[in-house]
């Protein structure tokens, strides 16, 4: 059957089913919708609890971070595992260890940012930009408690700074600064940090990811500050994993697994 015809039918049917469902949805922007304020018959609204009580529980003003890293931290851990699993899947698919299989996509030899006078402008700009990007990325990770930011955003920016080095110069430049051994080790280290913050409370007798009980180890005044600091710890773990995997994915995709040549 012609795929375009079949696609049109499938799309029309699906669209009608979806539109049928939105018939009695709340108005756009309604603060009294069930998602924003809860509904009769259920438990008290979680969204209102987060807005009102989460500062008292965790002393973190950014509500998104407190929900992401503490209340729903289990989801975030698995999200990091998804990133890690995608990286491993890409290595498993692409990475040809040992012999070079087939043609390398492009083999630039003289484009290192340290050599070749044609690349002075690009090289210099890159040298100026990369440290600024990295410091901003670290700021985003650390300031995730007070402004939009956090582990994923900062990690992507850190990965992007290495990709910038690879784009401006040679993939070998970037790999020289962040080798395959390093990024493989750091990727798992990030999740180990996260899971470590989860398992420590279990050792101390409470449930998984119950940061409050870590006040004995972190020596804070109360469980709230322990939660705040643990959130920073897990965000750092997330940032490390995301940085390593983002760069690893770029390195493998651009060189088709050989880690030689490429962009």
């Amino acid at each position, binding site marked *: 059957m012609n795929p375009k015809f*079949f*696609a049109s039918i499938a799309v029309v049917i699906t669209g009608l089913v979806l539109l049928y469902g939105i018939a009695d949805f709340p108005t*756009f922007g309604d603060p009294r919708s069930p998602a924003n304020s809860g509904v009769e018959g259920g*438990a008290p609204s979680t969204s209102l609890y987060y807005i009102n009580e989460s500062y008292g529980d965790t002393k973190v003003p950014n509500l998104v971070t407190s929900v992401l890293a503490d209340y*729903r931290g289990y989801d975030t851990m698995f999200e990091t595992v998804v990133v890690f699993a995608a990286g491993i*899947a890409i290595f498993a698919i692409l990475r040809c260890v040992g012999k070079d299989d087939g043609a390398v996509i492009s083999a630039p030899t003289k484009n290192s940012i340290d050599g070749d006078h044609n690349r002075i402008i690009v090289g210099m700009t890159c040298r100026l930009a990369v440290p600024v990007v990295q410091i901003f990325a670290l700021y985003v990770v650390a300031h995730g408690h*007070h402004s939009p930011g956090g582990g994923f955003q900062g990690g992507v920016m850190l990965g992007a700074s290495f990709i910038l080095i690879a784009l401006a110069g040679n993939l070998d430049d970037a790999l020289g600064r962040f080798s395959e051994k390093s990024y493989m080790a750091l990727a798992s280290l990030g999740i180990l940090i996260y899971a470590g913050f989860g398992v420590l409370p279990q050792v101390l007798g409470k449930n998984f990811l119950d940061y409050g009980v870590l006040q004995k180890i972190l020596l804070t005044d109360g469980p709230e500050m322990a939660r705040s600091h643990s959130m920073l710890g897990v965000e750092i773990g997330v940032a490390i994993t995301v940085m390593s995997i983002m760069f690893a994915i770029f390195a493998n995709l651009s060189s*088709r697994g050989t880690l030689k040549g490429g962009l």
Partner: protein
Amino acid sequence: MVEFFLNTVKPHFNFWVYVILMMIGLWSLIAKNNLIKKMMGLAIFQSAIILFYVSIGVKDGATIPVLEHYGDYAEKAVSAGPDVSATESSPAPAASNPADAFANPVPHVLMLTAIVVGVATLGVALALCEMIFKEFDTLEEDELLRKIKALHDDA
């Protein structure tokens, strides 16, 4: 016609937008021949779902879910006590609830996860496309199916 537009579409225009976007993505996922275009359709499809979720948490006149003057607000909210429970959610416009100043944080949290998952999936899909290209030298689905069938008939 105009009433239909004003009564049905306008209060839910965000939902109409996302349905149209999603259908564009789904159509190109099924109908397009090139594998990369199929992946783009998948990306549009997933973006539409993200848009839908984020639009759930919007409140009129609300700001981002970060407590700005957290010092004052926190004391006010904690001392006010848990009076903002579900019993107040009936349509009568009660006294403006201090929590209405902040958008709902939950959809943002959920969508952070969904975006990352989408990116990871696209990464794996691109790796597969590279290996398919290396093996068969084309990314057009009809040619690929022909070449695979030829492989199979040889065996």
